[in-house]
């Protein structure tokens, strides 16, 4: 028995040695997974890089599965997505894993970037780690955008239209860029083929190559030690100090000693992606990607929602500059960062400006994303016929005033002006318009427009204006006086009995009770 065991051990050892002699496994291990890291770097803050890579691997595996069924043509891609979702066994789950994997990849990549920035890991000698990371971030966002395109639905089609409209603002070469982006003069089947190629060959290939470089740099420059305030990076001494740290008492091999938290985080991320995929399922495809079905309100995926919001919130004159130049400046600033702040303090505790930049950046991104999701500037196109006029804004009104309420709905006013919180928020709420505008001002505003409102002059006849203004005069809270014009304090108001007081909620209910 013992003999048998010895023989077995010897056989295994023999095979291992045979392989070792040819593959130099020990050396490879020591130079890669077993490389020395500072003990302080085995921190929960250091798990986001491996987490992003893990998500990318999940994306490759699930993406290959999806590509087995998906058809990248204008005629068939929507049907193939539906087939994947409803017919292919577990197709829905693979699509959901791929969608949630991409969400987690973008999110964890962002955490990784923030952590690296806060911990000063971009400083000497890790400038190239940071720059390759910035390019990886851009490639990942490219994957998110092209992924949104190959999920070929109405949002994908019109999302391309938005991309085209931004690129079309480039001076001189705009049309060439647009045609190159689309693979032709118009969004067509070739556009989809092009984004499919980008999404499954070009960008993942580039990501793999850059990940190789990124990891190679991690090995050559070493993992950043956990920074302490007051411990400044000095170019002349850093490399020597780091070498002494990782090869002395303060160091240990990444695997097996320092990898534990990465492994735990990996399990957590995989589990979370699986749970999200299982519970929430895949996204879309939503409306049919048929350009002639224009009853659609295109929205980008959440990772680009902030851009959608920026495009609405900045002043109109600045749009071309902000949309074209600001991204370039942003990328240049990110690339220049490790050279601008090459040495000195690493710890965020000693870098208040960096903390402020991150705080403001995160808050801005969150607020813009939230604003993009809410998009109060987008008129809800069905509000004029779908949103009921609130009951209490109708009771007790005269026939003329009610006629005005009808004009208000029929002329699509509701698409931009909400009543009691329902309708559009593009223009001011009209619940209290009578407290803000005199009837004269209402007439002028309706007829001439202005202040970001179209002029309705040609599209309303005098009777409609009269009814509309009569109705608007009733829209104000009970305890607020009606707006008055100091030059004409007792002016008769058009279309309504002059002495009649504005309606209040209370009066309305009384009238209804009678």
């Amino acid at each position, binding site marked *: 028995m013992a003999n048998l065991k010895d023989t077995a051990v010897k056989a295994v050892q023999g095979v291992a040695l045979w392989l070792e002699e040819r593959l130099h496994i020990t050396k490879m291990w020591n*130079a890669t997974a077993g490389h020395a890291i500072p003990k302080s770097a085995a921190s929960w803050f250091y798990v986001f890089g491996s987490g992003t890579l893990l998500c990318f691997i999940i994306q490759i595996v699930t993406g290959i599965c999806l590509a087995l069924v998906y058809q990248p*043509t*204008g*005629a*068939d891609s929507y049907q193939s997505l539906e087939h994947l979702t409803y017919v292919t066994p577990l197709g829905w789950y693979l699509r959901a894993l791929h969608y949630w994997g991409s969400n987690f990849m973008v999110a964890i990549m962002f955490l990784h970037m923030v952590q690296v920035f806060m911990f000063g890991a971009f400083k000497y000698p890790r400038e190239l780690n940071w720059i390759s990371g910035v390019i990886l971030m851009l490639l990942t966002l490219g994957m998110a955008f092209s992924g949104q395109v190959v999920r070929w639905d109405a949002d994908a*089609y*019109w999302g391309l*239209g*938005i991309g*085209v*409209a931004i*690129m*079309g*603002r480039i001076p*001189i070469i*705009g*049309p060439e860029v*647009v*045609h*190159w982006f*689309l*693979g*032709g*003069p*118009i*969004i*067509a*089947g*070739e556009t*989809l083929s092009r984004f499919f190629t980008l999404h499954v060959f070009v960008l993942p290939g580039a990501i793999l190559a850059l990940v190789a470089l990124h990891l190679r740099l991690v090995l050559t420059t070493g993992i950043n030690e956990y920074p302490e305030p007051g411990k400044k990076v000095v170019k002349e001494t850093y490399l020597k100090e780091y070498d002494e740290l990782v090869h002395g008492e303060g160091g240990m091999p990444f695997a097996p000693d320092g990898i534990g938290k990465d492994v735990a985080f990996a399990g957590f991320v995989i589990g979370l992606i699986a749970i999200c995929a299982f519970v929430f399922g895949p996204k879309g495809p939503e409306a049919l*990607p*048929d*350009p*002639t079905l*224009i*009853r659609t*309100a*295109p929205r980008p995926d959440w990772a680009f929602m902030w851009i*959608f919001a920026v*495009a*609405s919130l900045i002043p*109109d004159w600045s*749009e*071309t500059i902000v949309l074209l130049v600001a991204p370039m400046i942003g990328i240049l600033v990110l690339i220049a960062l490790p050279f601008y702040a090459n040495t000195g303090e690493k710890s965020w505790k000693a870098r208040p400006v960096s903390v402020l930049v991150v705080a403001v950046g995160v808050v801005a991104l969150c607020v813009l994303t939230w604003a993009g999701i809410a998009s109060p*500037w*987008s*008129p809800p*196109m069905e509000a*004029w016929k779908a949103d009921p006029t609130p009951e209490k804004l109708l009771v007790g009104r005269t026939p003329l005033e009610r006629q005005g309420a009808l004009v208000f709905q029929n*002329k*699509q006013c509701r698409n*931009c002006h909400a009543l009691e919180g329902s309708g*559009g928020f*593009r223009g001011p709420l009209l619940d209290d318009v009578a407290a803000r505008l005199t009837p004269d001002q209402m007439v002028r505003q309706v007829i001439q*427009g202005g202040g970001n409102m*179209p*002029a*309705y002059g*040609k*599209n309303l006849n005098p009777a409609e204006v009269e009814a509309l203004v009569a109705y608007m005069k009733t829209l104000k809270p009970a305890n607020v006086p009606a707006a008055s014009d100091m030059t004409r304090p007792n002016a008769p108001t058009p279309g309504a009995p002059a002495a009649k007081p504005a309606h209040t909620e209370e009066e309305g209910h009384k009238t209804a009770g009678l």
Partner: protein
Amino acid sequence: MSSHTQKHQDHGDEHVGKPPESAGCCGGMFKEAKKDPTRRDFILLIGSGLNVVAGMLMGIPVLGFLMSSWKRRSPHKWLSVGALSKFPESTTRLASYTNPGAQKWDGPLAQIPCWVRRLEGEKFQVFAINCTHLGCPVRYFEESKLFMCPCHGGVFYQDGRHAAGPPPRGLYEYEYKVENGELLVDAGQIPTLSQPV
């Protein structure tokens, strides 16, 4: 030679940058090359030249292929958006034309929508569907005679003029003509600010 190989194995690849006997890589071999520079240099030179020529034979066509979408502009063609009878006077109707470059695998993508406003007789205005702000599809409302954009709230009057919101100009308008009872438009590319139809 054997001792050199042994050494190489011991120190591993990480140290080849600093071999003790020479400043360059792989010392011994490098010195040997110096003895007979002309023939090896010549082959390297010819080989490199061959690569450049052969690389151009491949590389230029690859670039040409990739850039060919620049040339694939639609030839100026008159495209039908439908018979005149589809467009009653003083109405604005949604219509579409077939992308002249469409392939049969494009499916529904081949149809490109546009808004046709018939003023009277053979007087028309044909607007591109794309908002001039960021290209979203504008919708027409007959009651208020306005085009509204669902993305950022751009509004246009029925004649295409900018009425409100962020768009920097009025709607893009196609050239049109009437032939054999059909309305034809000069279209075929997505309009942008730098190349309006």
